[in-house]
């Protein structure tokens, strides 16, 4: 940094952390100010794996982890939608019922009525979009708090699910069908999963280098090359290691790959498009967003529709996972798990903060706990209590971190 400072480095009051030591200092500063990021999740995961694997070594066996990933994908997709509504400081309590309705629609339309599978899936997704649009209209036009509208939706949609399933209550999906294969059997070929594992780092380096070139051309400072390379190497080692371990068992489920793909798309939308910027703005300060010319109503509409549609998709995935559409689908802890996953992963309940990755990491934590407890042969009563406790802790961490952020001036 000799000679003339770049455009953004002219102010002597700001410390710039370029070196590795600097990066570490920046990280500890962020933690102290309450910007916890992914740290609680990583600590949580280490804790969970140590505790459960000492209680039952099967927990860390490759095939158990493969099953874990299958389970993650269904609720995880629902959790992606929850991230969208939480971002606006709103909530959707009916995602569990919505997923149950979608699962019932697959059974009724496809198996009972003989509608082709793609059409049945499309109908289930469309019903999700419709219900999301209804919530948004109630919110935008009538000022109905999403808490209330989706709480009544929770009951109404559950009723609809029971109604269309009729007295039989449960429909089995044909086991040889591609839908069930997708939910229970399909695994990425080894070469493909290793290739996909190397992709994030490749994209990271490619984008990083082109941004670096652009910033240098524009007279701005850019992140040091070594830091970019170190990040890429660390990411690749971690991913390829995980993939190698999973391939000691069955391998990486296609369903989980779909979930990650959706998370990547949502992450791009939230961080790199005007829509995502508007989501953050509306969640942070609705009035300011409105005065900046953002169509706030359309943002609410997009978030609620996305949330319900993803919930419907999650329901379809769970039907394929369980090979059945039943009255139990989407009930119990599905709602809570989806919301808890987003919050545990670091999306704030207070709006304006969050990432798509919080759903991925959060659901892995939630499912790991649930899976570990099942391995210990604990009853569902205990499982519910423990999951409830974990959610409470996650919300407490969120509120404390928020207070700390406010006092450190980090919004």
């Amino acid at each position, binding site marked *: 940094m000799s000679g003339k400072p770049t455009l*953004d480095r002219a102010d002597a009051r700001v410390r710039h952390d370029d070196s590795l030591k600097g990066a570490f200092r920046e990280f500890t500063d962020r933690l102290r100010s309450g910007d916890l990021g992914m740290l609680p999740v990583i600590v949580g995961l280490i804790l969970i794996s140590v505790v459960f694997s000492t209680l039952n070594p099967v927990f860390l066996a490759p095939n158990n982890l493969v099953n874990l990933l299958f389970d993650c994908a269904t609720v995880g997709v629902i959790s992606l939608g929850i991230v969208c509504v939480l971002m606006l400081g709103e909530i959707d309590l009916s995602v569990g019922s919505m997923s149950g309705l979608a699962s019932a629609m697959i059974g009724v339309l496809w198996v009972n009525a003989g509608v082709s599978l793609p059409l049945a899936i499309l109908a289930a997704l469309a019903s999700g979009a419709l219900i999301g649009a209804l919530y948004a209209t109630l919110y935008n036009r009538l000022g109905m708090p999403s808490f209330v509208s989706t709480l009544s939706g929770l009951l109404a949609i559950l009723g609809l699910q029971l109604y269309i399933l009729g007295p039989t209550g449960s429909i089995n999906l044909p086991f040889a069908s591609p839908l069930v294969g997708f939910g229970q059997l399909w695994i990425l070929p080894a070469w493909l999963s290793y290739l996909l594992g190397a992709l994030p780092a490749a994209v990271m380096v490619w984008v990083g280098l082109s*941004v670096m070139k652009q910033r240098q051309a524009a007279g701005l400072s850019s992140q040091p090359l070594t830091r970019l390379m170190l990040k890429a190497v660390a990411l690749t080692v971690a991913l390829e290691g995980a993939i190698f371990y999973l391939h000691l068992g069955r391998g990486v489920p296609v369903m989980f790959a779909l979930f990650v793909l959706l998370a990547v798309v949502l992450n791009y939308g939230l961080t790199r498009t005007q829509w995502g*910027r508007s989501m953050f*703005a509306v969640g942070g300060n609705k009035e300011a967003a409105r005065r900046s010319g953002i169509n706030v109503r359309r943002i609410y509409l997009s978030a609620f529709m996305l949330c319900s549609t993803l919930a419907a998709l999650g329901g379809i995935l769970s039907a394929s996972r369980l090979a059945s559409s039943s009255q139990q689908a989407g009930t119990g802890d599905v709602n809570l798990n989806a919301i808890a996953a987003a919050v545990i992963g670091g999306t704030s309940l207070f709006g304006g903060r969050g990432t798509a990755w919080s759903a991925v990491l959060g659901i892995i934590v939630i499912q790991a706990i649930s899976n570990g407890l099942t391995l210990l042969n604990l009853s569902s009563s205990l499982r519910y209590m423990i999951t409830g406790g974990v959610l409470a802790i996650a919300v407490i961490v969120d509120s404390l971190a928020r207070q700390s952020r406010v006092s450190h*001036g980090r919004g």
Partner: protein
Amino acid sequence: MQARERLPAKGERILSLKGVSKRFGAVSALTEIELDVHAGEVVALVGDNGAGKSTLVKVLAGVHQPTEGTIEYMGRPVSFDTPASALEMGIATVFQDLALCENLDVVANLFLGHELSPWRLDEVQMEVRAWTLLKELAARIPSVREPVASLSGGQRQTVAIARSLLLDPRIILLDEPTAALGVAQTAEVLNLIERVRDRGLGVIIISHNMEDVRAVADRIVVLRLGRNNGVFTADTSHQDLVAAITGASENSVSRRQDRLQAEAGGAST
């Protein structure tokens, strides 16, 4: 948009209000207001509470529509039906509460709602333009990648003013820009207002602070009970201004001053 095609020459009349009235039911908030704004001048609107300053600002910002009277903008009669239409014609308003998103950084706030390339945000270009604009205003923002929550009141005011400039307006309206600021920060914002004026924009500033008003304003327009009550220059004496604002040379401010003088005189003898 046609009105935006040419930049007005310095001193050219940009905005002219003729006989503007605004009634809310039986209440006349504004009665036959006359107001001219020229390019490269700072016009201060002063008046006591309830004088109609905020109503006038809202009329100019397109929030309220006048009941009577005409608004001429760049020599042709116009009407501002919505805040967006006022903004589009080139009248930018910085409201008192600034309306910034605290969770977003300075660049995101500056470009909010007008991001470059909506489907693949051009962060580099936005950051360069943000720095260039802030440099032009000689604004002292340490980093444009910090959330606005970490900025001081004066820095936030600067960001809000810079944001209104980004849309290339002809006139900017500032509602109480110094009300919440300390001494040094007030001075910085006043400097900023002068630099905006020097760029050839018309500036309308509303303030209760006579000192600030006299420091930057080329003309001081006094409103009283919704009517024009005189136009003054910066070298008008404080007493005359207060008299125009309160409507009498015998008012609570002058009475207090007389009392203090009498007490001081009594103590010295």
